[in-house]
C-alpha cells in the first residue's frame, strides 16, 4: 500500500527514518512549520528554518523517493513572544506562497492567550486573502474548548470550512470538528494523543469521510511509521480497505490538494524514475553509491 503522512516533522528525524518510511510505503509527507522544542529568539532563525523546510529537507526526502510538502506559519507557542511574533508575521507572505507549501500551519492555540489569538487571526486573514488551506494545531490542555474556539475564529475570519484541517483530535472533539464541516485529523502517538486501536474504533464508528490519520512524529517519543502501522491494524480488524485508503492517503490529498500545490498525477506515478535520476542506478556512473534498492516500495 502507499501512504501519505500529512503531519510529520522530518527536520527532527534521521535518514534511517526516511529509509524505513519509504520501505513501509510512505510516498509523500507534509512537514508543518512548528517550534524547535525551545523558543527562537530572533527572526533570522525563522528565515533559516522556513528556508530549510522548502529547501534542503525537500531535497533530502526526494533522495528516498518521498515527496515533501510543508506548511508555513507561526506556531501558537512562539506567538506569545509578541515583538518577535509581529516580525515573523510580516515574513510569512514571503514563504507561504511558494511551491510545495500546501497550507498555513500549524497555527492555533496553546494556552489560549490574547497573543495567540492575535497571531491566529492574522494568519487566517493571510490564508483567506490567498485562498489557502489552514492546518490547526489543537492544544494539549483544554483541548475541547481550544478546538471549538478555533472553529469559531476561523469561521469569523471567513475561511471556508472545507479549507480547514483541525489536527490532534480525539473521541471528545471529533463531533464538533466534523459537524462544522472541517477535516478531522488524528495524531497517532505511542503514549499520548491517539492510539492505533482507538483510531480503528473511530473509523468504524464515523466512517472515512473527512478523517485523516497522521504521525506528527518529531523529536519527542513518536513513531514515523504510525500511519502504515495503523492502516495495517485497520485491515487486520476487517475495516474496508477502501476506507483505510481514504484515511491514510486520498483524504489528505483531497484536503491539502486544494492548495493547487500537489501534483496528483506525479504522486500516483511509481517513484522509481526519480531514483534513477538521483542515483544513476542503471548508469555506468558509480561516483555515488545508490542507497536505496532499484525499485522503491512506496
Amino acid at each position, binding site marked *: 500500500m502507499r501512504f501519505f503522512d500529512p503531519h510529520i516533522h522530518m527536520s527532527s528525524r534521521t535518514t534511517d527514518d526516511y529509509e524505513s518510511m519509504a520501505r513501509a510505503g510512505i510516498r509523500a509527507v507534509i512537514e508543518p512549520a512548528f517550534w524547535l522544542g525551545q523558543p527562537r529568539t530572533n527572526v533570522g532563525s525563522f528565515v533559516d528554518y522556513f528556508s530549510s523546510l522548502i529547501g534542503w529537507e525537500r531535497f533530502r526526502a526526494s533522495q528516498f523517493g518521498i515527496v515533501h510538502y510543508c506548511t508555513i506559519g507561526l506556531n501558537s507557542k512562539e506567538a506569545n513572544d509578541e515583538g518577535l511574533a509581529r516580525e515573523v508575521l510580516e515574513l510569512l507572505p514571503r514563504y507561504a506562497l511558494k*511551491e510545495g507549501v500546501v497550507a498555513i500551519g500549524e497555527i492555533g492555540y496553546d494556552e489560549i492567550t490574547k497573543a495567540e489569538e492575535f497571531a491566529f487571526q492574522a494568519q487566517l486573514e493571510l490564508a483567506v486573502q490567498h485562498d489557502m488551506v489552514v492546518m490547526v494545531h489543537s492544544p494539549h490542555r483544554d483541548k475541547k474548548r481550544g478546538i471549538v474556539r478555533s472553529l469559531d475564529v476561523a469561521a469569523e475570519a471567513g475561511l471556508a470550512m472545507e479549507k480547514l484541517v483541525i489536527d490532534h483530535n480525539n473521541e471528545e472533539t471529533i463531533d464538533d470538528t466534523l459537524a462544522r464541516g472541517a477535516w478531522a485529523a488524528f495524531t497517532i502517538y505511542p503514549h499520548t494523543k491517539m492510539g492505533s486501536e482507538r483510531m480503528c474504533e473511530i473509523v468504524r464508528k464515523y466512517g472515512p469521510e473527512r478523517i485523516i490519520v497522521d504521525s506528527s512524529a518529531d523529536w519527542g517519543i513518536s513513531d514515523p511509521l504510525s500511519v502504515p502501522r495503523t492502516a495495517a491494524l485497520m485491515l487486520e480488524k476487517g475495516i474496508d480497505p477502501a476506507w483505510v485508503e481514504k484515511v491514510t492517503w486520498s483524504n489528505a490529498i483531497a484536503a491539502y490538494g486544494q492548495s493547487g500545490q500537489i501534483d496528483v498525477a506525479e504522486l500516483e506515478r511509481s517513484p522509481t524514475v526519480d531514483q534513477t535520476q538521483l542515483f*544513476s542506478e*542503471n*548508469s555506468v556512473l558509480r561516483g555515488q553509491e545508490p542507497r536505496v534498492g532499484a525499485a522503491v516500495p512506496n
Partner: protein
Amino acid sequence: MKPEDDRAARFAAFCDRVLSERLDAPGLEFLARELERSAVASTDDAARFGVRLGLASRHARRRPLDLSDAEHDLGRSIVQGLDPEAWTLLDVLRVRLVLALPDLAGERTAGLLEEAFRYGDEGETCALLRSVPVLPAPERFLWRVTEGCRSNMRSVFEAAATDTPFCVQHFDDVAWRQALLKSLFIGAPLWRVFGVDERLDAETQRMALDYADERRSAGRSVPPELWMLLAGAELDERALHSVEAEVTVGPGPARAGAYLALARGGRTGILRAHVEHETNELSAAVGRAALAGRHDSRAFASLRAREEIELLGPNAARRMAVDA
C-alpha cells in the same frame, strides 16, 4: 540599446514562445497580469517580486520542456553556451518574470534579485541561477553562482554549472576546478558543463587523478566522466598509467570513459589495440567513435544512463543520442 539588453529581450521572446505553447489559460492570464505589473517599476518591491516568483508554481509544473527542434535552436542561439534543453516549464516562467523587471542593468533591480536569492526556495534558486547568464553584466552575481556550485542539492548545482557559459567565463581557477570535481562527486552530468574542453590544466588533471586513486584505494569504482578532466594534447605517464588501470580493472561499460581519454590524449595506437579486443558493446562503440574523432566532452553523454536522458522527453533524448 546595448547588445546585452538586446540579449535579454531576445531571450524573453524565446520564453514567451515556449510559454504560449505550454501554459493553460489561467497560466497565460497570470503571465500577462504579472508582466503588466512589472512594467510599472514604482509599484514593484522585493517582497512583491518574491511572491510573484513563488506564485508561478501555481501555474507551471516542474515538467520537462521537451523543446521542438525549432524552439531548441532558438533557445540556444541567443547566449553562446546557454542551452535550455534541461529546463522545466516552471524555470522558463520564472526566468521570464526576471527578464520583465525594468532596468535589468540597474542597481535597484540587482537588489531585487539579491533579495529573491535570499528568500528563494530550491526551484526559485534554480530559475534565478538560470537567468544570470542572460542578464546584463552577469558577473554581478558571481558570488551567487559560486554558492550554487557549493550546494549539495543536485538541482541547484546543475542550474549553476551546467548548460551555461557563466562558470567558464567568470570563475577563477579555484572555483572552476572545484565545480568540475563537485560535478563528479554529486553525479551531475559533467559533459553538460560548458567549456570544459577549453579550460583544462595540469592542476585539474592532478586533482582528478588523485580522486581516481582515492576511489580505488577505497575499493570503489571511478566515475567514467572523470577521464574528461585529463589535460594536454598527449597524456603524461601518470595519466596514462591511471587510464590503463581503468581499462584493466574497470567494469565493461566504464572502459568507455578510459577510451575517450586515450583518444583525447593522442594515444590512438593504444586505443586501437584495446578496441579490437573489447567485448562490451557500449565501450566498443564509444572506442570506435573516438578513433573516428568523436571524443569531445559531449561524447561522454553516451556514458550516462539512457533512462536519465529520457526523463528530459523524447525530443531532447533524440537530440542527445545524435549528439553522443
